[in-house]
């Protein structure tokens, strides 16, 4: 892609070759009206309002690509006429319910109607029944819908659920006279609009998707709204608090929309979560799981005094990674000052993994980020249940496959119908647990530059290859010439006579052939299907950029060290750019800031986890000795998977004590915890920047101006690039996996009112139909480490036979069944 110059309305504009004109204009603050286009998604061409004139020809700015020296006029008389006619058409039969519409003025139909100066209506068509639909967490009102298909586009190109489509409206055809008298594009747009409304792909009236709510967010009118928000508040009453989502490591930009709870209760309440949907897409947890604040906390002086006592007595602080960088820094300071141990197993695993990785790669952090994955052509994912570990990684994969013509390779033991349903170009390999090394070796084998790779690894890889002879049936086309007798009229005599004509035709013939092919035993070990190589070859055509996403399964793997080294080798010796998905919100930040220990001491303080003295942001109903604020009640920074230090603000007030108060009482003084933002360790990549200087927004061209990006500090590689051979041990039989269902991450998401996933033992529908377990049965799962009893929950977002134990309900304590690694062999019994 090269830089080119185009001219829009007399203004010289720099842009990329092949960039859409609309994006080029937007990046340079030139206004072109557009409704149906979504940045990062493919052009829909539903609204046709982005008409411009490029080199004297009318084109749609959303799908016309920039060429060097192009001359663009954004508005001519004919274009103005088209645009006005289009807006008039959109207003035909649109109900005048603006007073009660939930869009409450944030309406693109309203804006453009006024922009185009529509004050009189020329067109009419008979309306049809457009009664509204309750789709569960969404409410659809076809009466308000302008069928711009933005919801459909977002669902298909960004999210990957493909849950929405256009269906027939069943209306009368347009008056034929309009074709002649209306502007051409306006008529074409109306003709399409008049035939369709939005419906569900599953044919029912209940949504069955991953419930991200992105479709409602992108809706330009009030047609698709969140059921929980319906008629709750006008947009203008809500104060927007810029923040960073605190549920997973994606660190999405969000804003909490807050207002007083009611006339009787002046306390702030979060009504909804909004995002810059052109540049960031949220998951269901981010969108609907917002009321996890520790609401009723008060300054309990007795408990605080006890906490100080406990801190003086404690030799261990164990904590989870749902804390800010500043709090992590405070904990590290406490360690340095009082010599306490810091225990956080999940962050420790990532820390060790990163350390092992850097021994070969020579840098502290992985090289790429999820933003880059969006535009990558070929993506491999190993060791992560993508859609639940980090929904944004799944969106990136889907976005690449559907918009950037990419292809993907997904290695995971748990079958995932959502991932499989993304596109045809996704290949999934359901390997046995513990075989992640084989997957990485396969990636090395297929993609690494063997001439540079250490020779012992090349030899080891070669040892899996053998030649084998197979019989293939090939279809061969042969030219067959035959003589055919034909009756033909002799032109001279006028009589019919029989002549012989030579005719050749192609005949396909099946031929069995014996061929010698390369047999890769790695494929067999991983359980890839026979057509794997063939499909892969097809998928690899015209692919230039490659990305590897690795996830938490690897960090806790018994051979994590070897895996880390393999990952580093892949990054070093192939074209693959690497992203590591941290397990929790701020695992990356914690692993960089804190020196973590393995074992707990005799008296421990638990921060959002169990301990002898528990500090918890979960509030009422949890085991808690002193209240702490939840992430939506705190200022601070969170380190995301994109290696970005994102600032977040307090959305709602908090009345109790926080970690900083304890630190102050113990002699580490700071008025606000954010005074530590500028003290975060620069030697691991943080910047010495004040919290108040950290921005949190996107530019018009999509540039992310949020916090800052961590510097990827170089470390001296050890020079030893050897990796161990992998063992072919695998877990077999009944297997349990430690992962959450869609929309759940931690106890904080479990606590929210809108996320209604139930705690229990998650089994796929496929597995339930094969066995005699039913949803709601009480079963006991026993592993070598322990057992738990809970109800069976049926989940159609997973497939296969692996049973998923969620972590979002602390009471279930499913971690106790696992020995670090996320998979374990187990047995199940009823009752």
């Amino acid at each position, binding site marked *: 892609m090269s830089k080119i110059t185009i001219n829009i309305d007399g203004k010289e504009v720099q842009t990329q070759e092949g960039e859409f004109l609309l994006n080029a204009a937007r990046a340079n603050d030139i206004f072109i009206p557009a409704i149906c286009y979504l940045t990062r998604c493919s052009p829909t061409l539903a609204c046709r309002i982005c008409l411009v004139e490029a080199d004297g020809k009318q084109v749609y700015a959303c799908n016309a690509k920039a060429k060097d020296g192009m001359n663009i006029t954004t508005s001519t008389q004919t274009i103005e006429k088209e645009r006005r006619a289009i807006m008039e058409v959109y207003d035909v039969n649109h109900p005048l319910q603006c007073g*009660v519409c939930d869009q409450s003025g944030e309406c693109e139909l309203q804006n453009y109607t006024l922009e185009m100066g529509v004050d*009189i209506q020329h067109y*009419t068509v008979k309306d049809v029944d457009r009664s509204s639909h309750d789709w569960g967490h969404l409410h659809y009102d076809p009466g308000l819908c302008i069928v711009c298909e933005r919801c459909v586009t977002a669902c298909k190109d960004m999210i990957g659920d493909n849950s929405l489509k256009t269906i027939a409206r069943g209306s009368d055809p347009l008056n034929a006279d309009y074709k002649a008298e209306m502007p051409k594009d306006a008529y074409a747009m109306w003709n399409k609009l008049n035939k369709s409304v939005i419906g569900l792909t599953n044919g029912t009236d209940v949504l069955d998707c991953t419930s991200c709510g992105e479709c409602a967010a992108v809706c330009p009118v009030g047609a698709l709204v969140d059921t929980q928000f*319906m*008629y709750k508040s006008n947009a*203008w*009453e809500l104060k927007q608090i810029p923040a960073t989502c605190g549920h997973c490591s994606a660190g999405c930009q969000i804003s909490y929309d807050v207002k007083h709870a009611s006339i009787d209760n002046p306390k702030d309440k979060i009504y909804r979560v909004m995002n810059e949907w052109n540049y960031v897409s949220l998951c269901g947890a981010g969108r609907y799981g917002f009321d996890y604040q520790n609401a009723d906390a008060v300054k309990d002086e007795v408990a605080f005094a006890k906490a100080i006592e406990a801190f003086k007595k404690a030799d261990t602080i164990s904590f989870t990674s749902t804390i800010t960088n500043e709090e992590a820094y405070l904990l590290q300071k406490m360690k340095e000052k009082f010599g306490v141990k810091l225990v956080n197993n999940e962050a420790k695993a990532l820390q060790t993994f990163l350390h092992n990785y850097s021994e070969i790669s020579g840098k502290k952090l992985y090289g790429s980020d999820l933003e880059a994955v969006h535009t990558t052509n070929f993506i491999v994912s190993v060791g992560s249940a993508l859609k639940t570990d980090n929904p944004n990684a799944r969106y990136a994969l889907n976005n690449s496959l559907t918009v950037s013509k990419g292809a993907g390779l997904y290695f995971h033991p748990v079958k995932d119908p959502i991932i499989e349903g993304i596109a045809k170009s996704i290949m999934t390999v359901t390997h046995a647990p513990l075989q992640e090394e084989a997957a990485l070796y396969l990636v090395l084998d297929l993609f690494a530059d063997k001439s540079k790779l250490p020779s012992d690894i090349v030899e080891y890889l070669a040892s899996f290859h053998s030649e084998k002879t197979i019989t293939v049936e090939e279809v061969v086309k042969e030219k067959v010439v035959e003589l055919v007798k034909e009756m033909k009229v002799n032109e001279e005599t006028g009589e019919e006579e029989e002549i012989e004509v030579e005719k050749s035709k192609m005949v396909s013939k099946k031929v069995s052939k014996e061929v010698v092919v390369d047999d890769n035993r790695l494929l067999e070990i991983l359980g890839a299907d026979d057509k794997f190589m063939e499909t892969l070859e097809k998928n690899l055509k015209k692919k230039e950029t490659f990305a590897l996403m690795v996830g938490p399964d690897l960090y806790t793997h018994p051979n994590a060290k070897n895996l880390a080294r393999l990952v580093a080798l892949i990054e070093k010796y192939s074209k693959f750019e690497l992203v590591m998905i941290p397990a929790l919100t701020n695992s990356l930040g914690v692993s960089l800031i804190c020196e973590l220990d393995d074992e707990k001491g005799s008296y421990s303080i638990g921060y959002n986890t169990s301990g002898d003295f528990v500090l918890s942001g979960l509030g009422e109903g949890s085991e808690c000795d002193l209240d702490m604020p939840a992430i939506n009640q705190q200022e601070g920074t969170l380190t995301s998977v994109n290696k970005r230090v994102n600032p977040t*603000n307090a959305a709602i007030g908090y009345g109790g004590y926080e970690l900083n108060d304890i630190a102050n009482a113990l002699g580490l003084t700071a008025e606000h915890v954010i005074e530590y933002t500028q003290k975060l360790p620069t030697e691991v990549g943080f910047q010495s920047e004040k919290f*108040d200087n950290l921005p949190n927004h996107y530019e018009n061209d999509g540039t992310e101006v949020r916090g800052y990006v961590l510097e990827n500090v170089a470390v001296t590689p050890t020079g030893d690039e050897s990796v161990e051979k992998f063992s072919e041990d695998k877990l077999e039989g009944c297997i349990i996996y430690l992962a959450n269902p869609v929309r759940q991450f931690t106890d904080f998401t479990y606590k929210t009112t809108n996320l209604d996933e139930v705690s229990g033992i998650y089994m796929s529908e496929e597995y339930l139909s094969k066995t005699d377990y039913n949803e709601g049965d009480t079963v006991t799962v026993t592993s070598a480490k322990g057992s738990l009893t809970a109800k069976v929950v049926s989940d159609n977002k997973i497939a296969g036979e692996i049973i998923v134990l969620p972590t979002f309900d602390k009471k279930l304590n499913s971690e106790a069944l696992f020995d670090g690694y996320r998979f374990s062999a187990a047995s199940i019994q009823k009752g």
Partner: protein
Amino acid sequence: MKMEQFNDRNVADNGYFLVDIEDYPTDGWGKFKRVVKRSFRGELFVGLWVVLREMIKFDIHTVQYPEEKLPIGPRYRAVHEMKRLWESDTERCIGCGLCEKICISDCIRMDTKIDENSRKEVSEYTINLGRCIFCGYCAEVCPELAITHGGEYENASQQREHFVDYEYMLTPIDKMKAGTQMEFEGFGAITPHEDERVKKTPLAY
């Protein structure tokens, strides 16, 4: 997005400042001087003379309030009323929230929710008459002619906060049935000849 408002953590400093007022006398001599100054200016006697003069004239125009009350003009802006629809006797208010938005003294608050018929319903509505300046913007902005001003001006209260709620303002149903609901003629009411000025939307049926 501008971050200044989030970065200002000084909650006490929200726009208040001290005005320059001459100090009150604190000692006895100062107070004495003030009394002498106020007493011997002669202004007191001007007022006393006016009262005496009018008393001797016996030309009294005083309305004997509260026994007697002057009629109030239809456009007078006193305590708000909520009107009902003539056609169905139901409430006119649709809960659009424009009155809440436009209110310059920020004295209107409303809570809305979705009702059993999937319509927007006003679940609670209050006006703080202690803050209200009776400017009439709420009545002017109301798209449904639902909130209007009435003639009820006797709203003395022991507290500064004095709330009226939806039920209080709503036209009583018996009054509605009797057909005695009065339309407001002030700002926001329909002007004469409105029908002639409206552009009609064409319909296909």
